[in-house]
């Protein structure tokens, strides 16, 4: 059984927060999910972690310049921009 403190810890690592009201139900759900994940604990296995991608390999692309996105395109979905920068409130930068 995962503890409330552990839930808060992994939420912090995940950049999420859990309210006191949410904590009991989430702890129960996560305990069940982690117990389910723990079903692999009985399996005996050793060797390598080589997967199915082993034969596809990877290759290097040619070192040539290709078209890239403009600043306007890159900033098109930003909540806020100033000139060619992503903007966050000044008060944040001051913190």
């Amino acid at each position, binding site marked *: 059984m995962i503890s409330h403190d*552990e839930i808060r810890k*992994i939420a912090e690592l995940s950049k999420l927060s859990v309210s006191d009201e949410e904590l009991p139900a989430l702890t129960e759900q996560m305990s069940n999910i982690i117990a389910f994940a723990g079903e692999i604990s009985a399996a005996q296995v050793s060797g390598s972690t080589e997967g199915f991608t082993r034969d596809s390999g990877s290759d290097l692309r040619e070192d040539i310049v290709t078209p890239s996105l403009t600043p306007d395109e890159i900033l098109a*979905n930003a909540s806020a921009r100033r000139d060619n920068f*992503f903007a966050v409130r000044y008060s944040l930068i001051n*913190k």
Partner: protein
Amino acid sequence: MSIIKKISGKLTSGELSCSEITRAYIEAAKSRNPELNAYIAFTEQTALDAAAAVDKKLAAGEALMPLEGVPMLLKDNISTKGIPTTCASKMLENYVPIYDAHVWDILKSRNAVLLGKGNMDEFAMGSTGETSYFGAPKNPHNTEYCAGGSSGGIASAVSGGIAAYGLGSDTGGSIRQPASFCGLVGLKPTYGAVSRYGLITYASSFDQIGTVAPSAEDTAIIFDAICGRDPRDMTSCDIEQNTAAALSKPLNGLKIGIPAEFYEDIGGDIGKVLENAAEVYKKLGAELVAVSLPGVKSCLPVYYILACAEASSNMGRYDGIRYGYRAEEFTDMNDMIIKTRNEGFGEEVKRRILLGSYVLSAGYFDAYYKKAQLLRSKICMDFDTVFNCCDMLLTPTVPVTAIKCGNTLSPVELYRTDICTSTVNIAGLPGLSIPCGFNADGLPIGMQLIGKRFGESGLLNAAFQFERETDAQYIKIQERVAII
């Protein structure tokens, strides 16, 4: 009969213009969508513009390419430049991609008629469609049931007759499961067969773009168009396939493995239907071989540990700064990111991020993540061994039929329904779901063929032969567009 060929035939014979067909599909889709919730958005002008281009080509006497002028939809995690792509999440509700996914690039160059974007589980995380921020897509066979997940919207639209075919993504069964629930053919190609460039990521070592269509022949036509190497996805492979041309190969001498582990909890209607399907293959000349894949028992936890670990990393990009939702009230930068993510993500996405962070965190990494990686290698080797004595495997697609809307299953109970499909993603193999019967309530049942890497051609041929032998009686597409 292939619906793609049927539409292409009407276009080239001059019986109907592409604009007429497109308008008929748009009208049908708009009228049926309130009931099915298959589409998140319509792209009417994009569709009519493509149709006009096709009509212009036809008027000039030019030949059409396969798929040209055929109305379709894309799952809403496939990027479409200038057209919102939401992943069915509040987080991306107003996100408009600045580039096209590779598969949409290809289809656009063929004047594919994009009718709209398909509903889905949020960020492709779910098995019923119910984690969608926009509500679940419904099953056209009975709208009290879900179309499935995560690519439920495209399956609902194709089965409901309001799109000819759809492209989706499959990370642990997200194409094959809704295809099975809706009585369609769903292909999860080999990892690397189709570029994922522009697919919004869930779990990078599992994600694959694939197809939902009424028949094996339709599937082959679409797959041939979208497969191949794309330098923008380094996992994509330079393997050309011409599956559509290889659809009439007799099955004499084909060895089909029946892996016992996939049938352990299968009974009732699904068991009977699968037995019948195996008999059909025997009649077609195939030899059935009993095989064993002992690693299957650990597949579900392996899949959820690794997929969620990758998801927790991939979802880190949603911070409210560069794109996506941003919380309005916050105290400092860290608080802004946390509130953005808390408000922008739904419950299932948060659970998977939490599980991923847990299995990657200090103290648990070896016991969960590393062990799951070792088991993944073992599962891959098990498949290699099995394919030494057979050409493909026949299994159920899902151990259940479509799930009722508003179900009260726990997250773990829902995860367990992915047993037959997630195994295939773990090993990066191609998997094809084919309609093969109905349960007592008339809901479709699918079977799954699993092939060797890049064995799509063999799978599609086997599916095609099955459809022919059974007079395609298990394919039931609703005819909403009367002129087709």
